[in-house]
């Protein structure tokens, strides 16, 4: 699949290091090498390649992040039901163990690759790259990557996706964005999920949750949804279709996109 397989971070890093690298001797004869390189540049380099693959195959890649149990798989099931006649969908599922989520997706007639991370708390670009060897990107328009359920670690690793979506279920509390700012700041769309439960939860105010998101300087849409009742799914689906159109326009212009909030290191390795 990958004509650049085997490329290593050494070559990718080298010109950067040489460009900005200053070498100087300290008083005691040691050599201090100035580097100024993103700590995750090896991951980011691979993520750049993944993004290039997605772009070459005209695929839009969406990374879904949230706590465990906030409804990522359920959202995907409803999304597949709504869009599978119009778009060809593929899913990469990340969990510590089991094929359960991939099986739920396959039951909808969509191809799914399950990554089991063992103990790792997040997906990284190399895991996605390996999973892509099991997928035919030419037969997919949208690839959803369901990250490991975790509101902390996934935010730090670029996978090569074009957009991030962060979910917050109403049972988690409306102050979650204030408690976990890094992952909500990374969102290109925040979905408040399980809105059907608001009837029995009198202590979750969607406006407060949105306000907490805005305090992170996030302009992304915040949508109140329920995959169960269907409430608000039109907002999510029309955003998604807009993203597919934008990706198609970008590809015709030879451009690509990273999530809106991407650390400097991720932007360094954006291809195309």
């Amino acid at each position, binding site marked *: 699949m990958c004509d650049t397989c085997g490329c290593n971070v050494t070559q990718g890093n080298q010109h950067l290091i040489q460009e900005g690298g200053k070498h100087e001797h300290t008083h005691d004869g040691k050599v201090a090498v100035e580097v100024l390189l993103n700590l*995750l540049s090896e991951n980011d380099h691979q993520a750049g390649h993944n993004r290039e693959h997605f772009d070459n195959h005209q695929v839009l890649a969406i990374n879904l992040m949230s706590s465990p149990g906030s409804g990522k798989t359920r959202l995907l099931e409803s999304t597949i039901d709504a869009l599978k006649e119009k778009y060809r969908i593929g899913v990469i599922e990340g969990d510590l163990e089991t094929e359960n989520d991939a099986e739920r997706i396959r039951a909808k007639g969509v191809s799914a690759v399950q990554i089991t991370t063992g103990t790792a708390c997040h997906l990284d670009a190399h895991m996605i790259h390996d999973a892509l060897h099991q997928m035919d990107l030419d037969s997919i328009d949208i690839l959803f990557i369901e990250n490991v359920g975790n509101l902390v670690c996934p935010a730090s690793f670029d996978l090569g996706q074009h957009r991030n979506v962060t979910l917050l279920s109403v049972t988690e509390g409306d102050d979650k964005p204030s408690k976990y*700012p890094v992952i909500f700041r990374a969102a290109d769309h925040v979905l408040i999920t399980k809105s059907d439960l608001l009837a029995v939860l009198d202590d979750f105010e969607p406006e407060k949750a949105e306000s907490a998101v805005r305090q992170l300087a996030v302009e992304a849409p915040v949508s109140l949804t329920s995959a169960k009742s269907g409430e608000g799914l039109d907002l999510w689906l029309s955003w998604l279709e807009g993203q597919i159109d934008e990706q198609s326009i970008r590809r015709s212009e030879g451009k690509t996109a990273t999530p809106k909030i991407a*650390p400097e290191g991720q932007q360094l390795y954006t291809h195309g």
Partner: protein
Amino acid sequence: MHELSVCQAMLTQVEEIARRENARDVTRIVVRIGPLAGVVPDLLQQAFTVARAGTIAAEAELVTEEQPIRVSCLSCGAESDVLPNRLLCKSCGDYRTRVISGDELLLASVELNRLSDERLHRPA
């Protein structure tokens, strides 16, 4: 606890730099971490004590420089020092701001002893 992954990635970079610089050993690694990078400096230090074993940085010290969070307002242009969960402009209150410091996750510098330095200083 993704700090171990971050630490291993850091050591891969450090070993590559050490190889290129013909280093005998690495004595000091300086990283710059912003509160919005999603990496906890203390946990990175703990991971480092485990991950450095058997590497060229086995005896190295890890220094983490924490950066303040600073935003620039897209509306009024003011710059403010802010908290991780309140990135609003302190001057006009607008939420349309850009983080100009505080989301770094950088390997800043590596201090090492060169093999060639030893040879150079060895008496003939």
